[in-house]
């Protein structure tokens, strides 16, 4: 378990079936998944603990993450299996300029597989726990 960005969060898990490009995939003002090709298109990431195995797509994803944190319509936290710099950057910058830390945590596959959409989880310095 490694934190890409440290922080605390709790919320309902939304586990994505496929990686999502935040740019072109999420509206940062509402949190809606706008990528119609994505299996979970139409759902909202707002306030969710978002799970995706790894990142995908455009470099602008960092900006969309930061904008979502600023607007309050982004995820509460993100759980991944592989580090993704584009996603991490958005959260690092939001932390630097707004002092708002959205945790991003990378976990082993066995732990990743243990959570499903709808689970209520906490992310703290100790890692992810069911709440």
């Amino acid at each position: 378990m490694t934190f890409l960005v440290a922080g605390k969060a709790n919320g309902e898990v939304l586990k994505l079936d496929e990686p999502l490009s935040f740019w072109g995939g999420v509206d940062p003002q509402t949190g809606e998944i706008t990528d119609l090709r994505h299996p979970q298109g139409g759902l909202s990431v707002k306030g969710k603990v978002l799970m995706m195995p790894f990142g995908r797509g455009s470099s602008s994803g960092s900006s969309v993450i930061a904008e979502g944190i600023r607007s309050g319509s982004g995820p509460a936290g993100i759980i991944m299996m592989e580090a993704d710099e584009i996603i991490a950057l958005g959260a690092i910058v939001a932390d630097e300029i707004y002092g708002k830390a959205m945790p991003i945590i990378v976990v082993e596959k066995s732990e990743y597989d243990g959570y499903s959409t709808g689970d209520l989880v906490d992310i703290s310095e100790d890692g992810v726990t069911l709440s």
Partner: protein
Amino acid sequence: MTVNLSEFDQSCLDGEEGPAAASAMRVIVRLAETMEASELLDVTSAHIDSCLYHGPAVLDFAKWLEDQGAKVKIPTTLNVSSLDLIHPDLYRGDKNWGAQAKLLMDCYERMGCKPTWTCAPYQLEERPKFGEQVAWAESNAIVFANSVLGARTHRYGDFIDICAAICGRAPAAGLHLDENRKGDILFRVGGLNESLLDRDVLYPVLGHLVGKHAGNGIPVIQGLPDGVSEDRLKALGAAAASSGSVGMFHAVGSTPEAFTTEEAFSGLAPIDVIDVTPEKIILARDQLSTVTDSKIGAVSLGTPHYSVQEIKKLFELFGGESVCLGVNFYVSTGRDVLTEASLRGFVKPLEEAGVTFVTDTCTYITPIMEAVTLPVMTDSAKWAYYAPGNLGVEVIFGAVEDCVASGISGDLCIDNNIWYEG
């Protein structure tokens, strides 16, 4: 893991190079930690994607740096933004949004970046050489720099690009390092007829397919003709970086770190082998269209920005014909390329034929296109991938030849034979 900092890095962090360098270095070091980099390295150029307006956060960030006195230290180019400064009337979006976007663009220029406003900085005269370490953002530019130029950049997102430009430093990790540049998945192209292998339209389709299967790996593509053109490799890479997270690919016989398949894999075995059959190519092609229709409302070409060669081909395809009344025909390109293509006599006749050139931005990231209810046709897999979500349009993918024929007639004209003929 701690990052070993050089004296210079530490002096930046300590504020000896000014407050902006301190802030920029802090972001670089935090990113380096997430990448598990053991140190930073020098980079010789940067390409900035952060100049596209997505809302207040990106402007807050740029101002945060500028207010601390930020100036770039290395040659730095700018990616597309939200406005076309050469043809400002094309912008049809919210005035306030446009005004904020302009503030952002001005801010990056004041920090010393060159106002190139293109997603294809590799088409500019000065571009990185083989082996050069750079910090580029914009997914298609990253994949081109790594794969086609043999320069080295990691898959950088927004924000880090300008931080690297301010400090001239980037994490020594990822695609900057030899050990992370070898291929892992082999794509064996086979059974495709020779004439299809020599068509532009194959390459974005192949890229779409490769990206879907490669995820964030490094695909090695075998079975293409030697010396595939830069424009085709551009289309392939852009597509693979949209459907997947590909930051680098090897096309055996075309890209500089893959003279042979063995070289591309550094002598190791691929972790997976995928046979690219004609059936899979057709399936990938069909995934790029959201509808089949008999009419089109618009055409959008130039994602990534069209090169001079591509504009020349467009000029030849039009052959004196004009765009059908009621169809809007857009071509996105860089301002430098537009100047060159104008000098060579391709632009004016195309404009007279009804083609609208869009510079400094792209039709799928900002409100430029007139509202259409009919589908939009494109030769770009990247445009086809993102436009339905961004613009709410239906899209039909086709070869540039199909796009021109359809644009002239207003009816969908697709030459299906090219996919099947022997």
